């Protein structure tokens, strides 16, 4: 970690401002573009400031897991494309990419947003597997929140492809949409020094003490937590962070409705 950079960013936070002249708990402009890829069953592009994330949803037929014979499943995959940041290298997903995929997956799975039983075609034999692919187009900080938001909206726009037996025709989509019951939204809160901030920039992510990603649903239920960073968090810290995340997720929900 770069000590000089940290000192400099703390100086900013102490005077209640950020590199781009925002408040500590202020989001950059969020713009949402649902259903933007025609070849995917569902898609969404989310921009938070200059961060740009694209999510595509594809359907696949497959066998169910032996312990959940009447349920379909989801798989989340993240690709941190080298074109989005000089820090990303080509190759198999690294630890950062896997973390994003896991946190997004956990948010959707644990909130019960998707009714897995409705993905079953024939019990024990054939189910739908929903693949959620996250691609970063530009990395200017806070990819995780953008990815989580784009993933749930992409699922909402997704329509089943038409199917005859085991053959799927991806070219003609049916009008049936996935049944999405809940909207989990992840909000990442960073702790740098004694300050809590949301929607971090790349520089701020480099010097974080600790980070907590909190995924909440509309009825203010927490469905996933992910802690990272070297420093520990006290109970008070976590409570403050959760309150902040709930407040911010309300703001995001308002933008989503538009």
């Amino acid at each position, binding site marked *: *970690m*770069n*000590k*000089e950079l940290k000192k*400099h960013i703390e*100086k*900013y936070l102490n005077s209640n*401002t950020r*590199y781009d*002249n925002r408040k500590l708990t202020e989001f950059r402009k969020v713009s949402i573009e649902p259903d933007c890829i025609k070849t995917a069953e569902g898609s969404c592009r989310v921009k938070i400031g200059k961060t740009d994330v694209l999510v595509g949803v594809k359907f696949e037929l497959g066998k169910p897991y032996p312990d959940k014979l009447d349920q379909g499943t989801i798989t989340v995959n993240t690709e941190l494309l080298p074109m989005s940041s000089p820090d990303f290298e080509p190759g198999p997903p690294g630890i950062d990419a896997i973390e994003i995929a896991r946190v997004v997956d956990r948010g959707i799975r644990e909130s019960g947003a998707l009714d897995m039983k409705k993905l079953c075609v024939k019990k024990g034999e054939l189910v739908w597997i929903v693949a959620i692919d996250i691609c970063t187009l530009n990395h200017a900080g806070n990819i995780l929140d953008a990815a989580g938001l784009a993933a749930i909206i992409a699922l909402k726009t997704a329509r089943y492809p038409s199917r005859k037996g085991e053959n799927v025709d991806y070219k003609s989509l049916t009008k049936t949409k996935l049944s999405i019951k809940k909207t989990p939204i992840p909000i990442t809160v960073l702790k740098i020094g004694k300050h809590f901030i949301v929607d971090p920039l790349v520089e701020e992510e480099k010097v974080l003490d600790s980070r907590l990603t909190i995924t909440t649903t509309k009825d203010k239920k927490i469905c996933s937590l992910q802690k990272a960073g070297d420093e520990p968090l006290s109970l008070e810290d976590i409570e403050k962070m959760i309150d902040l995340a709930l407040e911010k997720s309300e703001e995001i929900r308002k933008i989503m409705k538009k």
Partner: protein
Amino acid sequence: MNKSKLKVSDNDIVVPGELLAQGMNYLPSHGTYRLKENILSSKLGLVRIDGKVIKLIPLSGKYLPKKGDVIIGKIKDINFSGWRVETNSAYVAMLSMKDASSDYIPKGADLTKYFEVGDFILTKITNVTSQNLIDLSMKGPGLKKLNSGRIVIIDPTKVPRIIGKRGSMVSMIKNSTKCNIIVGQNGVIWIKGEPEDEYIASEAIKIIEKESHVSGLTNRINEFIKSEKVK
């Protein structure tokens, strides 16, 4: 031989591969090359015709290292013999131990005491080999490690616009924002001051980068800084 002919006029915008002149009476310079009897452009840019010499002022592009340039680099790695530095160009730069400090560095010393990975340094290019390997030196007036401050990276072709005529633009920003600003030839700019002032300075630099081709730039930047300061 007398058939030499210009195909473009001064200040035309040309694309790579465009025919600029025919015949041997003209000479190719920066951003242009000769192919048999023709002179073609190798970059996107504005044509400048100076007598017989045809030159191109590129509109965008990566930094190409040049001997004698003062640049801002970032320490990427520490080796046995020195530091590997990222220079915002496509080529690798090395700062060897003997050029790193005027002090004597003893054998087996902890090199992180001098520069650590992630530090920014103001340094000078002493040599560029034929393979485009860059040698750096910290020996020279004003060359130092840049403590704290924020870094803004711009298109290296806009660096002359940021500096302005005899440094007029950058000193105007320095005076009106009371920030310390150092512009590296490789398009990396270091700013240090109070947080609000730093923000205004970095925004001003971004405007210059975006609107450098529109006239009346200095006045507009001046007005921008004034209006931001009122807020």
